[in-house]
């Protein structure tokens, strides 16, 4: 096969490219330039996007003897990932930009271009496995190392995209194994630190970064009964489940800690309540997509649900749940644009609603997060959490 290896400059994508070469594929390396103003040197635990990272990727490609290019996707990335991130927060939601990047950049804009330029697939250094069913259809499964498993952030991929993806390190037993292999191959990136932070927020301070982009309007903090408990500097920097930094002087009647249980950017209100109020029993997701079988083939419809597991964060444990379909919605209305200055929240297509009921109530569920539906190790599909019903 002709494979385009996306090389971030990190150890995982380096080993992924190397394994694709070893497997006898014709491999070309490409580093995606995602920032208009790339930093010169890596800082903290950001994993890509600086000139140093680009050079690291180039060095590995050189060692592998494969052609290497840097492609500029910065415009697309700004529009689809960075601006979306800001608009989601401005709408009181908590987005996952890495999923958005996979959905719109790596496995969309890049894959599109790769196929048009004559490649058969795009390879990345994700810890996830593609298993071919007997009829050849690709199934997306968790990576062999459950501590590193990244199938969650790939949950947005459809069978058409999966047919052109390969994850050469997904079957690795551990990150340590991948690092050891990089060492053995003499890659200069073998000991490069793992990346955790959002790549476009240089110092990792999301709140300060957002405050710069979304004009802050002071507003009220209320309890669930509507009583005013204090003031906030701007509702959109609060996340459901948050406990610290609320600045409420008056203690709760029962003396227990209070949590953010709701953020309403329209009313510019933050609602707080006891931990019990965070418990969520039902979730409603929009922008649903299916990684494998279409829902009808799995017996999922508006009337009948199926038993499976749902995971609501990249590193959360999956929980048993029952999943069925809701109505088809045109779009999610945007929040009123008025207070938000340069960022105009956009209405977004909603599509088929995914309904989920969990057996044991979940806490810390924020609208905007993605819920990925699994059965065992297999990813069935995903949806963006839009509404929650408290237990």
């Amino acid at each position, binding site marked *: 096969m002709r494979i385009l290896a996306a090389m971030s400059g990190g150890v995982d994508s380096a080993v992924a490219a190397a394994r694709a070469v070893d497997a006898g594929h014709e491999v070309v390396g490409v580093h995606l*330039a995602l920032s*208009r103003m790339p930093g010169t040197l890596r800082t903290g635990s950001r994993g890509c996007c600086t000139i140093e990272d680009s050079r690291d990727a180039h060095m590995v490609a050189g060692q592998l003897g494969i052609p290497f290019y840097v492609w*500029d996707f910065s415009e*697309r990335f700004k529009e689809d990932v960075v601006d979306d991130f800001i608009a989601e927060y401005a709408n009181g939601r908590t987005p996952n930009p890495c999923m958005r990047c996979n959905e719109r950049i790596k496995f969309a804009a890049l894959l599109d271009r790769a196929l*048009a*330029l*004559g490649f058969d697939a795009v390879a990345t250094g994700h810890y996830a496995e593609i298993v071919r069913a007997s009829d050849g259809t690709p199934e997306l499964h968790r990576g062999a190392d459950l501590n590193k498993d990244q199938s969650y952030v790939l949950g947005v991929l459809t069978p058409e995209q999966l047919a052109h993806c390969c994850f050469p390190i997904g079957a690795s037993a551990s990150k340590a194994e991948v690092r050891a292999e990089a060492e053995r191959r003499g890659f200069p990136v073998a000991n490069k630190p793992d990346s955790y932070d959002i790549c476009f927020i240089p110092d990792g301070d999301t709140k300060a970064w957002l405050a710069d982009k979304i004009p802050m309007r002071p507003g009220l903090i209320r309890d669930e009964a509507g009583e005013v408990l204090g003031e906030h500097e701007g509702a959109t920097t609060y996340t459901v489940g948050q406990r610290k930094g609320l600045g409420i002087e008056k203690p709760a009647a029962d003396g227990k800690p209070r949590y953010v249980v709701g953020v309403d950017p329209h009313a510019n209100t933050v609602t707080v309540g006891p931990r019990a109020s965070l418990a969520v029993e039902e979730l409603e997701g929009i922008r649903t997509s299916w990684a494998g079988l279409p829902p009808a083939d799995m017996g999922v419809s508006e009337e009948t649900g199926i038993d499976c597991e749902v995971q609501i964060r990249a590193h959360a444990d999956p929980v048993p749940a029952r999943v069925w379909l809701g109505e088809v919605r045109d779009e999610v209305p945007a929040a009123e644009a008025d207070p938000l200055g340069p960022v105009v929240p956009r209405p977004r297509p909603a599509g088929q609603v995914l309904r989920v009921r969990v057996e044991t109530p979940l806490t810390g569920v924020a609208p905007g997060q993605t819920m990925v539906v699994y059965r065992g190790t297999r990813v069935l599909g995903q949806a963006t959490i839009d509404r929650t019903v408290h237990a």
Partner: protein
Amino acid sequence: MTEAVFSAYAAQLRECGNPSSLHAEGQGARMRMESARARVAEVVGAQPAEVVFTAGGTEADNLALTGIHAARNRDAVRAGMPARPRVLISAIEHHAVLETAEHLESEAYGGTRAELVLLPVDRTGRLDLDAAAAAIAEAPERTSLVSVMLANNEVGTVQPVTELVRLAHAHGIPVHTDAVQALGQLPLDFAALGVDAMSLSAHKIGGPVGTGALILDRGLSPVPVLHGGGQERGVRSGTLDVAGATAFAAAAEAARDHLTDGTVERMARLRDRLLAGIARTVPDAVVTGPWEAPDASGVCEGESSEADRPAEPKAAGRREDRPVRLPANAHAVFPGCEGDSLLYLLDMAGFATSTGSACQAGVSRPSHVLMACGFSEDEARSTQRFSLGPDTTVEEVDRLLAVLPDVVTRARKAGMVSATPRWAG
């Protein structure tokens, strides 16, 4: 690097001696240094004392802009005159000039922050002389210098520098020109051109990377950028690089010979063949820079492939006595094709091309030159530059033209980054 330049370089690297030392070895080195200086000066129509060796074109540009701007402001302050914050440059300068000028805006050299004025160009990338005249006349006493490149590195347009010098000198304003791209492609005569400072680089003509010069009128003493032992008229400190200077001289003489032995003329004809071929094989391609597509009498399908066939009468660079486009430069917009895609496909087909001027990460960005010429951001992303060399053959040009339509079709299918990808949900 040719064998001749390489052996001249290598021979000097074996020698020891610091030209600034007073013992016999040092004196020998000084002789070789001055010989190189005289040879470079001779090639570009300057006096030896006007050659200030630098570590390349970028340093020469930095020294010219920063040094002259600071000196002009220092002199104004000393004479009790108002400051001269205005720096006039064309909108299509190389980054070495552009970024330096922007830096002057942010730093108070000579006690004053610069006011940067970008002089516009027309669709072909040629300086708008009327606009330049107006900008100069607007506040000549507040202007420190004017800098316009001799020929653009991306679209190849030769600039009306002589006319610009006349306009600026009428107000006593010094003119700098970045001639890095022009050296070896156009006859250079510092004295006849009339500019006050001219940047050169050795590696563009097959000399070593890391060697260049600022040709500097004797009457100018810019404030140094590099301070130290006071070498090079006190303007550029640092131990003199005899080997680099000697190799530069050898390369400059060889480049000058190419101007008269038919090599450059042959390159210009190949360029015309390439541009006409691009216009023919990719009908919606837009050739940038000064260029008129040949009419019916021009190149058409099945023509002979003799390299020395006279170029079509209306071809680029032949309408006037002096060339209007660099002979080695061909550049075009391929609408709907990402430059990155074109570069990849051409590279795979064995052709080394470029998307514009690369930044240090090797990332292509919409070119500021194309934008200044009035092209859209998408058009500016859809470019490809083809540089010809003295060894380029007519067969190579024809082979490129043979693969180009397929390359363009495929790149177009891959689409523009600005378009929504088809997978997007």
